[in-house]
């Protein structure tokens, strides 16, 4: 089961995104960005389930809450970029 991580430049931006997605009925959890994909070190992300990733991306773009990247992260820690 994959999780999808939207990464953000700041924790505050990630929290804003999580709040927006939760208000839209998406289960969104603020997380630390996995080291494998954090850009510049120590990042913040919002994790959503596979079923919600496209809707979440649309909601964030619609509200101009800009994420840096979106990654699909496997339970083993492997990550690949979504929407490259």
């Amino acid at each position, binding site marked *: 089961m994959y999780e999808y991580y939207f990464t953000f*430049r*700041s*924790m*505050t*931006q990630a*929290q*804003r995104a999580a*709040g927006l997605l939760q208000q839209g009925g998406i289960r969104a959890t*603020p*997380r*630390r960005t996995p080291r494998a994909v954090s*850009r*510049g*070190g*120590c*990042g*913040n992300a919002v994790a959503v389930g596979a079923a919600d990733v496209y809707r979440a991306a649309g909601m964030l773009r619609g509200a101009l809450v800009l994420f840096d990247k979106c990654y699909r992260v496997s339970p083993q820690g492997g990550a690949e970029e979504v929407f490259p």
Partner: protein
Amino acid sequence: MIYLDSAATTLRKPPAVAQAVAEAMEHCASLGRSGHSAARRASEVAYACREAAASLFGAQSEQVVFTFNATHGLNIAIRSLVSPGDRVVISGFEHNAVLRPLHALGADIVVAGRRLFDRADTLAAFDAAITPGTRAVVVTHVSNVFGYVLPIEEIAARCRERGVALIVDAAQSAGILPVSLSEWGADFIAMPGHKGLYGPQGTGLLLCAAPPKPLLFGGTGSLSELPDMPAFLPDVAEAGTHNVPGIAGLLAGISYLRRRTVAAVAAHETALLSRLCRALEPIAGLKVYRGVHQSGVVSVNLAGMDCEALAEAMAQQDVAVRAGLHCAPLAHASAGTLQTGTVRLSLCDFTTDAEVDAAAALLGKIGAPVKF
């Protein structure tokens, strides 16, 4: 104790403030540094505080920077906009939190408007002083000595028209009068958490519409591989571990204000101030510095008595006031009280009619001539 020193710190807070501080001490770790539950709780508290402050002050949550006090915020703001030699216009009622950072930078300081409670004079002076070469206006919303409410909306409009940066010191107005980053179009608004917002000491907010420069450099929990501070808000101005218990208390204070409303606080303090001044004005030898546009702060002087001696006499009767120059020598120079200082009585939302009546009665008793 009858506490009339709220312009320094509001001593009486909503009970939820101390409870929030205690809970954060027990349950909250460092925000934005880890993913465990105690760190997440801290992050949630901080974000809730940013959102509450943003809602109250017409800002976005990312524009809300946590500081240690208003002075800290003013230093960040001034260092972000002003370089040595820049022309900066200030009012004649500024606190040393404005004057000293500008002096230390070597700014070309122009003082505009020195007539107490004269808004027309203040505005005319700013009109004349804001020239094309002016880098910034740094102005207090309310004098911490006299409670004079400056015409901030009009000054902000002049700054917008002329493309001059604006920094507002809202130390005496945040939580007491309407304050709005977006409506004023200010670049920065600095405020303490421990006065009108009813948070703990050691808290403050800087609202940023312009990009600040860091005053402190260090860890932010973001972009850690880079030697430079992150360029984005709020991280750029928040190096080091946050005062999470203080932020939790500040959130409780702001939440109280949002329920109570700033308008209700203003109405309460206005009514109390009128009551206090009506009681003070008949006292022989007592000079009361009273104006039309005045918040819940009033200064007095008693003829023939040093201001510190008067404050001490009141303290002995358990009435807490503040005497001296109130860290605002410029305001005293403008009002002609630099040599004498004043005794300042300041109110808050928890001050009662009975308290101001008792304080006025005590001043009357101290001021009454001794009969033999």
